């Protein structure tokens, strides 16, 4: 899995390539933890080229949400492909943060 980060003032975006398995989730967490989140009000995760996400990845998304939301920010997942979108909806995560289908 590969993760690219870009920030534009208060908006930051992670673009993820590949499968977010246990190892990928840990990489993502390490990248997220290293961020200075004080200035970030909008956190975007681009899932355009994500092929799979496991429980560990979803757990990390929840933790990212908590960190962002407690700081008063919002989190958004964009370009979510069919099967992953269905999974996230099954888990009712669309009621926790915004999910945009590809």
């Amino acid at each position, binding site marked *: 899995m590969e993760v690219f980060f870009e920030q534009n003032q208060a908006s930051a975006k992670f673009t993820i390539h590949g499968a977010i*398995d*246990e190892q990928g*989730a840990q990489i993502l967490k390490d990248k997220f933890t290293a961020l200075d989140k004080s200035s970030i009000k909008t956190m975007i995760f681009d899932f355009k080229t994500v092929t799979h996400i*496991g*429980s*560990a*990845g*979803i*757990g*990390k998304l*929840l*933790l990212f*949400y*908590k960190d962002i*939301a*407690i700081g*008063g920010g919002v989190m958004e997942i964009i370009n979510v492909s069919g099967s992953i979108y269905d999974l996230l909806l*099954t*888990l*009712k*995560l669309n*009621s*926790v943060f915004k999910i945009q289908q590809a």
Partner: protein
Amino acid sequence: MKFNDLTIGNRISGSFLIILILLLAVSATGIFGFKQIVKNASQVIQGNKLDSILAQKEVDHLIWVNKVNALLTDEKVTTLNVQTDDHKCGFGEWLYGGGRKEAEILVPALKKSLLAIEKPHYLLHESAKAIGAAYQNEKIKGIETARKIYSDNTLPALTEIQALLKDIRKTARDHIMSDEAMLSSAQRSKNTVVYLSMFAVLAGIMLSFLTVHGLNNLLKKVAEGIAESAGQVASAAREIAASSQSLAENASEQAATVEETSSAVHEITANSRQTSEMTRGARELMNKNIESSGQSLKAIVEITSKINQIVADSDKIAEIIKTIDQIGFQTNLLALNAAVEAARAGEAGAGFAVVADEVRALAIKATTASHSTQILLDETILRISQISASVGDMNLNFEGIVESATIIGEKTEGITSASLEISKGLEQIAAATTEIDKITQQIAGNSEESAAASEELSAQAEEMGFMVAELTRMVHGKKYSQNKMDQIERI
């Protein structure tokens, strides 16, 4: 191709064919010789018959002429008693009948002479007619006339006929085989048949010797080869029988072991299937857990937000309480001032002094209440701080729980997949084990059959040995055969 390279069938067939050809040649030569002898004999007989007929005809004409002459010379003979028709005399009947045709077929060269003899023969008989007529008409002169006719016509015709008949007989003899020639030809035929028969017999003997000698050598080699092979087959069959028996025993033991293994594998497969079902349930639980975690996190975020709001609001309350406390303090001061002023006012300020006391009492109460509220607020803030800290701890703990749970979920998912794979693999192993069990039992059965077949093979090899001995006896005789039997028994 060499003789030794030929097959037995070809050798025997070839030998018989050559002998048959020679026999046919001898027979054909003999038959042809006999036919030639018969033909020659027939020709000689016919030639001799023709010659005798012609000689007889010549004699007949001499007799005929004598009879004519007797009429002219013997006074006692007064009538001409001869055949005057040239077609009805003995020679005439032959010349104009079937005898001439047969003679011409036998010797075609006679045609010309036979045609030439017709005229003098006719003139001869015509002369007799003339002599007879002259003799009857004029007795004295008639004899003279008849004698003249006899000398002028009859005798020359007779001479010519005799010459032609000699010529015909000579031609016939020249064209018809003589007895000596026939004998010589028969001798040649006999010699040809004898020489050819001798050659055929010699060739037959030589071919028979070659064939028998070759077959003997061949049969000897074959018999020795079969005997050796029979011994090896018998030995191999015994080894196979022993191996098959051992294999059958091992296969039976293996079948029992495989059966136990199969049973264990089936049990493990059932357990694995159950584990897969359990882990499949764990996935659903994990999904619910994630869903609940999401909602809980959302609630925690809201609680945290609200607590922060309450903390922020408590400072405002403290400010208000402080303001109330200041108001109470100032009111108390004002009440004291009012009481002082009321005291200064004396009787007139007595009522005002009461009001001032009441206001002061209220101010003290307000101050007390504000102090109590402040204490309560401080306690509340303390508690909220404690709650905030607890929520923070809970946050951290929940964060850990969510992370651990989701990682466990991930691992459980992996375990579920692996468990399913294991279950599939075990089912395949179970099926393979069942198949192995069947094959092993089949091997055991086949090994027993193989052992039985090997024993049968051994018996057949022994039987083959006896047949070889019999074959050897046919080729080499009884003594050699006995030695061979001893060798086979030793094998």
